[in-house]
């Protein structure tokens, strides 16, 4: 539901600046981090836990924990990696013991079921989906984040660079390396299949 159309302003601050602002007492800064990462984290989580409600709970829990321990994020410029690690741990906890983390944050009955989720995608594209998934999952977090910002959040490389506080060149090179890996494996495999 979110795309660049609604969020141009969101990329004005880098993660580092937002973390600092937040630590200095401006909690609004954190909501910008939420808007920036919630979609990406959700994508990351749904692939692991499969269940949309649980995925939403985990994402919510990640942000809440991140907010509580933001002062422990020693490298504010690495916020994205930090919250990915945190989220990944929550997913692992959940998968290890679904009961305990089951409803990390009680879903108030005031909310609605998402209308579609990966399980409902059309049969046939299933295989390709699984292939892309298994490949992207093996990429370093940095690449996963940049890919998701580009293709899920539809951000430009300049916006991504600003958000991550990296030079544009670093972002394009990360993307280009990610494409190289995926290109070989996704596209070549598909051509073989044909």
């Amino acid at each position: 539901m979110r795309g660049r159309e609604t969020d141009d302003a969101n990329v004005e601050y880098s993660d580092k600046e937002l973390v600092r602002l937040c630590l200095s007492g401006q909690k609004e800064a954190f909501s910008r981090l939420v808007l920036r990462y919630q979609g990406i984290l959700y994508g990351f989580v749904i692939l692991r836990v499969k269940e949309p409600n649980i995925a939403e709970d985990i994402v919510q829990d990640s942000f809440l924990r991140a907010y509580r321990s933001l002062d422990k994020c020693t490298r504010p410029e690495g916020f994205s990696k930090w919250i990915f690690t945190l989220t990944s741990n929550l997913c692992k906890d959940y998968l290890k013991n679904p009961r305990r983390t089951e409803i990390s944050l009680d879903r108030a009955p005031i909310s609605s079921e998402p209308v579609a989720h990966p399980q409902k995608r059309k049969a046939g594209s299933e295989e390709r989906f699984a292939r892309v998934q298994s490949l992207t999952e093996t990429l370093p977090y940095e690449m996963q984040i940049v890919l998701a910002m580009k293709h899920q959040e539809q951000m430009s490389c300049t916006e991504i660079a600003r958000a991550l506080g990296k030079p544009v060149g670093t972002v394009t090179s990360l993307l280009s390396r990610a494409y190289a890996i995926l290109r070989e494996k996704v596209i070549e495999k598909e051509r073989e299949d044909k």
Partner: protein
Amino acid sequence: MTCSEVTQRIELYLLGEMDQGEITLVSQHLDKCPRCRNQAVEKRGKALLSTLDNYYQKIRPTASEELSSRILQSIDNEARYRERSSRSKVVKLWLTALAGVAAAVLLTVGLYLLVGQSESKPFEVELSNGSFIKAPAGSVVSQLETNKFRLEKGKMQVYLKSDKKQPAVDKTFIQTPSCDIKILEFDPNNSVDFEVDLDGEKTTIQIFSGVLEVTGKQGKVIAQRNQAVTVSSDGTPSVYVRDDPRLTSAERKARIEKALKMLEGRNKSVLDKTESRVVIAVSDLIKLGAKEHAKEIAELLRSHVPIWKEAALIALAELGAREYAKEIALLLTDNEGIARSAIIALTKLGASEYLSKIAVFLKSNDMSRRAQAVWAVGIFGGKEYIKEILDCLQISGNDQETKRVKRAASLSLGMLGAKEAAGQIALLLKDESAFVRGSAVLALGLLDAKEYAKEIAQLINDASSYSVPEGLKNKKYKSTDSVGSVARQVLKEMGVNLH
């Protein structure tokens, strides 16, 4: 540039993510190399990009706006909780709610002016129903008369919950050096929630719920939830989008117009993207607090696209557009997901006149609608359905949805004061699901079921995550993060000594 270099960079080229020099080099190569044109561009580059676009679109959250408001709400609660618990000396004035007296009067104060002009202590007044008015140390707040406060310096937070439907306060509630703030309306859930911040040059009022009128020397504005008002030093008030103070009224208007245009054009285009663009437009209208355009949003309720209907339901509820309750109620007979959203929307809007229509779902075989209905009955105080809700506690099944029904049932029974249910609810204290256990504790707390204190006490070290559901009227147990902490708070309220 060689063929392999072109292949290596083809995606960035297609995305336009290169500098001009490189773009020229790649273009020149493609012009003279048909093999690359065919192989690199079509077969590889475009194929990979579209595969990735499709993949990432599939894993994005479908109700992203809702997810973010949930997350932000929990962060907000956490921040308030921290702020609250970090205060040392709290001056407590006991206020009592005047429920049934003249609609104009919201609160009456038991003790007057203990606080005065003190800067060193925080100011805090709390009502038994969870309402509060607070100001951190360093702020200067004084009470001028019943229901009238003056903020001279610093910040203050106002959260009022009313026992009456839509009470109005027809005089200034808060006075600051640059403006007067009047409460015009409560939200459909009967709350008004805002913060006032004087930072020397300007006054900022952030509104989380309710409708306020702010009058400065140079004019007055009306603003509502999700909006903020700033009053400049010369006394000119202007309305902004909350959380985005850089958006001026004019910019807000432009964004609203853009969103409305998207809604208008929805049937003209057959592009795939139109479907989600309309949803984006609707979420933008929520974000912008555009209640004045509820009519345009409500038209989507009659559309043929399910996600549009659903988006409209969420938006109308979020914007507090109570006047569409009747139309929303018509969707109770629509398909599962939509009916469920309709119940949620009616609950949020406080449309208790549809209680009997919602109560039909108390016997539904679809557990998600059933859970919503059970919750709605509790919120609306439908005591006549206690028996049906008791039956919901009996249903068997171990899936998430069944648990949701049980959780909602115990909380509803708690809200309805159904003492006779305490025994059955107490059985849920041993449920394997944390959210069922936590809700059972909470429900027993609401019922003040002291006879189960011992069983509750066994959970005080239960560290499983749990937080009190949004919308639960009682704010006493608001800031909790585990079953154990709810249990401790409940026991404290019951007056049970843990040692």
